[in-house]
């Protein structure tokens, strides 16, 4: 039997290719173009080689915002993941309360990011904000516009408030996929509550949890809007995360070369961490 060779179907992929080219590939190449050249306008470019990359990698400003970024992401993951699992475990499995809980959980996810920033900004204002005013009236000196610690706490809590729901919902989906048989078998085997969590619930949640952590890692590592609206990166530079710093370099100072180089480094860091995390998680799976 001979197979007919007909490659015309490949033409059907063209629209997608064009779309990807215009929304991802070409802009990325533009960034690459800027990263290796210097321009003074009028579309005149001078070759600079790796100068911008060296400059960015040596600058203490980039180091500082990268470290801030890593600490921030680490903190929110350390809070959101256990909290999210905990909330998912306590949510009801059946009955009328399921939909109520799901809607309540989904609410923060539906709010636009800049609105979240504005809400928390007003909420935390030391004089008139409910949170800020209450804390100060309890004698706690709190002012997120002046004190770095207060600013950090507010940013972290805001992110926890906004995004823990995502982990809750994903974990809840993982938990609801466990058949009742497993719990019944565990009861019959005399398993403790902890053993049920450790040997049934956690392994069954592993895949969704991997996705949840990846999503939260990427999103928090690229966070911009909320801290920009809340603190503007201040006080000083204490909450200037990578994205905020990048925008300052690119649009504030109009240093397109270093900004482009920084973008590429930033992109590679995200890619590398995601790849490493995913590979490790999936390797465990196959054992």
């Amino acid at each position, binding site marked *: 039997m001979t197979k007919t060779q007909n490659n015309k179907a490949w033409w059907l992929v063209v629209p997608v290719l064009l779309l990807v080219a215009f929304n991802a590939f070409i802009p990325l190449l533009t960034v690459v173009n800027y990263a290796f050249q210097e321009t003074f306008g009028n579309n005149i470019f001078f070759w600079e080689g790796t100068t911008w990359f060296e400059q960015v990698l040596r600058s203490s400003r980039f180091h500082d915002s990268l470290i801030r970024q890593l600490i921030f992401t680490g903190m929110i993951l350390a809070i959101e993941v256990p909290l999210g699992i905990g909330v998912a475990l306590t949510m009801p499995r059946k009955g009328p309360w399921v939909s109520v809980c799901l809607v309540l959980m989904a609410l923060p996810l539906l709010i636009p990011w800049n609105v979240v920033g504005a809400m928390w900004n007003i909420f935390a204002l030391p004089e008139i904000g409910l949170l800020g005013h209450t804390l100060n009236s309890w004698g706690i000196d709190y002012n997120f516009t002046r004190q770095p610690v207060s600013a950090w706490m507010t940013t972290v809590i805001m992110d926890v408030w906004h995004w823990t729901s995502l982990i809750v919902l994903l974990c809840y989906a993982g938990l609801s996929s466990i058949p009742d048989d497993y719990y019944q078998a565990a009861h019959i085997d005399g398993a*403790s509550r902890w053993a049920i969590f450790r040997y049934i619930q956690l392994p069954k949640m592993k895949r969704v949890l991997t996705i949840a952590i990846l999503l939260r890692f990427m999103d928090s590592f690229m966070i911009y809007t909320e801290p920009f609206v809340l603190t503007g990166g201040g006080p000083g530079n204490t909450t200037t995360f990578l994205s905020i710093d990048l925008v300052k370099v690119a649009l504030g100072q109009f240093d397109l070369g270093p900004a482009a180089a920084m973008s590429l480094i930033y992109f590679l860091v995200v890619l590398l961490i995601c790849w490493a995390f995913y590979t490790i998680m999936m390797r465990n799976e196959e054992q």
Partner: protein
Amino acid sequence: MARIRFKNVRHAYPPPKGQEPVYALKEINQVWEDGGAYALLGPSGCGKTTLLNIISGLLTPSEGEILFDGVDVTSQSIAARQIAQVFQFPVVYDTMTVYDNLAFPLRNRKMNESLVKERVEQIADMLDLTTSLKKRAANLTADGKQKISLGRGLVRSDVNAILFDEPLTVIDPHLKWQLRSKLKELHQQIGMTMIYVTHDQVEALTFADKVVVMYDGTVVQVGTPVELFNHPKHTFVGYFIGSPGMNVIPCTVDNGQPVFAKNPLPIAQPVNKDLSGKLEVGVRPEFIDFADEGIPVNIEKVEDLGRYQVLTLKHEQETIKMVLNEDQTIPSENPKIQFNPEQTRVYCDGWVVEEAAHD
């Protein structure tokens, strides 16, 4: 190990608001002997899984008591009852090795690790799992996983009974047979009470010493496979067991003899004359023969199944199935059939009318 007794057990699941509860189990009074192999056989929704969950303690019956060796365990917890259960879908702890899976119930009960090892190896040997003890349980095939589920039950020496809830549903046909023989073998080796729920008559008949046939929330008959075949007490048993099932045809009773569409049907013992209710006569396809005199029929269909043929016959509106052995021939003209009087029974409202004492 224990003798299991049900005293007036009834169960209803919580009904939707404003509705009367519907009893999934209508009333069960049974005694199951220690060390027996029982099969609960019935169609989906007949209450067999409900009954099983009542034994294991996953469900508390709405009414009645359940006793193990005379001790009322109705309100005891699952752990206290010492029951093992194998579910329809294999339950294994994915992240653990086969060894750890088998050891899990013992470790939860704080057993000494050297005893655990001894016991696990013994059970693994029985189930042919010794070579895969170090493998991760998640990597086993469905039948391997089901063996682990079974092993987790067997590994505990203090188990009162092992319950099987349609354990072979997800197993490949050729392995089904192997695993079923393994179960039978294990039962003979360790003599533990085993209760096996299934809707497959072949599984039930090959596994069990005693088959408990359930229908619509009640136990309609308990008996050995032969008893169920030869003396079905209910038309459902006759129909459900055997392939094709028993013929159930409407009849009237005249002078203690059943009459089907003006054809008198001879039976071994005349029945009580004043019967009220829906009357039917039941006869298995195996106990029908062609004869010179008898009920005239039309042959609608002949299915050749190799060693025998299944004939679909029609007399007026009634369909009658008949099994014909290889050596028998189909008469060419005006076929007439006769029922074996010893194996023809009258049923009133589904239940057999006792004509004589048997077994």
